[in-house]
């Protein structure tokens, strides 16, 4: 349960600003030492912490519209979304009722929900590779290392020392670039300052050339994300499942909001599932 001395990091992605260029994905991979396999067209074995989905409104030429959906880990808290009156309106105030879908299922405690930050961790060295969390995540944000990463000769020189490369047989996922918070905190220990909004930004947020991604503390009125999640164009993916994610989206386009939020009519659901995204 959120207390006043705790923070809740979250993200707001403006779907209307996203141009699907993939800079966020690539920046994420280079920040987090993600490898490249022989065959990356096999998307269900390919590791993309932040995947950009292309969706369309399913209408024929010339009424087709497309939009892009960058999908990091949602850092779900689980449970019922609270109301403003209950203190912190994004989180369930009953700690027993709130279960992050993936955290509660891990048998080896390789992932946890940090009450101080609201960030869901993943510790590859603890992971036994049972993939139960992968099955539990409705956003497909968790990835299993099916292969040893083949690093071409010389390329390990470009690896970041701030993120530990993973071995095969373990699960990994977006961490909201937690090592960046570790670095930012390091500095505060030295000079006694606080971690400010701009001191901790994720790699994708920084990289986005159209500024579609905003990151910060959801509960802090001084942060941009706090205001953005209050607009009436804001929504979360699969809100109805009760995952209570901390990644919000905004779009003016109604079809986009409808599609992401599982307001599916029967026919649409069948169609979406049959034809798939792009």
């Amino acid at each position: 349960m959120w207390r006043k001395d705790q923070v809740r990091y979250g993200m707001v992605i403006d779907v209307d600003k996203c141009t699907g260029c993939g800079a966020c994905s690539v920046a994420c991979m280079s920040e987090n030492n993600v490898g490249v396999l022989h065959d990356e067209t096999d998307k269900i074995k390919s590791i993309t912490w932040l995947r950009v989905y292309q969706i369309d409104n399913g209408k024929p030429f010339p009424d087709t519209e497309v939009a892009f959906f960058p999908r990091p880990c949602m850092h779900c808290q689980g449970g019922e979304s609270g109301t403003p009156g209950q203190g912190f309106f994004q989180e369930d105030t009953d700690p027993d009722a709130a279960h992050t879908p993936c955290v509660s299922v891990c048998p080896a405690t390789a992932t946890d929900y940090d009450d101080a930050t609201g960030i869901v961790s993943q510790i590859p060295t603890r992971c036994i590779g049972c993939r139960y969390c992968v099955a539990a995540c409705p956003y497909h944000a968790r990835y299993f290392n099916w292969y040893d990463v083949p690093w071409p000769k010389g390329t390990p020189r470009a690896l970041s020392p701030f993120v530990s490369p993973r071995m095969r047989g373990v699960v990994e996922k977006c961490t909201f670039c937690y090592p960046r918070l570790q670095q930012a905190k390091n500095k505060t220990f030295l000079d006694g300052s606080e971690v400010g909004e701009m001191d901790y930004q994720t790699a994708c947020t920084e990289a986005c050339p159209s500024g579609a991604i905003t990151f910060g503390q959801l509960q802090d009125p001084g942060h941009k994300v706090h205001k953005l999640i209050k607009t009436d164009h804001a929504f979360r993916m699969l809100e109805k499942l009760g995952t209570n994610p901390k990644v919000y989206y905004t779009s003016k386009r109604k079809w986009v909001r409808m599609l992401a939020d599982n307001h599916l009519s029967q026919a649409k659901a069948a169609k979406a599932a049959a034809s798939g995204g792009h």
Partner: protein
Amino acid sequence: MRRWLDDLPKYADDSSWWPTGTTRCRPEVFLLWLGLPLTIMAYFTVSALLVLVLGLNQTNMNDYFAFGVWIVVDLAVIALGAGAFFTSFLNYIVGKTELKPIVNAAVLIGFICYTGAILMLGIDIGQPLRGWFGFWHANVHSMLTEVMFCITTYAIVLCIEILPTVLDNRRIGKVPEFGTFSHNLHTIMIVFAAAGTFLSFFHQGSLGGMFGVLYARPFAFRGHLGIWPMTFFLFIMSAIAAGPSFTTMCVMITEKITGKRLTTHKVKMLMGKISGWLLLVYMVAKSADTLYWAHFNLPAAGVTFDSMFHQPYGIWLMWLELGVCGWLPALMLLTPRVRESYGLMFVAMLLTCIGVTLNRFIFTIQTLALPVLPFEKFYAYLPTWQEWGIASLVLGHGLLIFMLAYRYLPLFPQEPELNQQ
């Protein structure tokens, strides 16, 4: 050299190890028979080495089908192996001593199923050497933790439960220490039966719970009763319904192959009746659960019943599971005339076992095949030959153990009596 060869039949003569009052096939015929499980085991070994050395990329599992055929087989054999705990429970605790003639076989089948499942789980995880983290760094909230603890401890209980049967071997039993030990074990078996019942009850439930708690997976998620989702109870019910059927089926198959009568038909009929009643109760619960799920759980998640089924995992699977392999065998087993017929009862029991296997398949594969993200693709899954190799372990090592046990251990106390020439 020659002498030795001539003496070979003498060396190979294992008749002194056979259970008292029984006859078995000649050693060379038995060796030929052993070829079958050994071949399967060889296939398993090659597959296992490939997976362990090269990794899980040898399978067709992926980030959508995080679980594959191994989990399906695991869940299925554990459910089918439930005959062990439930028969022991009825025999030792409830006092249904009529089941005594079949309880040894039930326990052995349970042992086979559980050890096979554990071995497969060890290969299924990406980091087998870290498997013990699940115990050492256990997360008490995870259903899988419960499963891991219960399966391992229950496997140990099963070892203890079959120990007396092993010690009752004609030759081993002659060693005085073993004889005493075996006798003492028999007297306290009720304790292990109780422990086994408790453990097994729980992990059958937790296996179901594993799916029922996936609240972000609308296909699997179910409402909770206390801290347990409905699937917890459904899995227990289906397992104890199918377990006796499977045990009896195995006995029947053995009878057909060996050409001997191993238990009286009365015992089998009793097992069938138990299975039938339990299946009926289960089917009522399962049908109610399905209706509730379709009318309340699914709409709450923003999806519809129809959107849950896509080819090849169409709605036909559900009808097959609930109708042909659910209600039908339940009603059949409850019909005395069916039970009286060896063949019909076998068919009904087979359907029951297929039904529970199908149920585990649907919960594992269909849950994952269903894209939850509205714009995600629908995928299907087919295992690789390596996956089949590892999945066939249960068959291979099951046959091997069962054949050896049948040959040397007094599994069927009624056998000498029923086969008197």
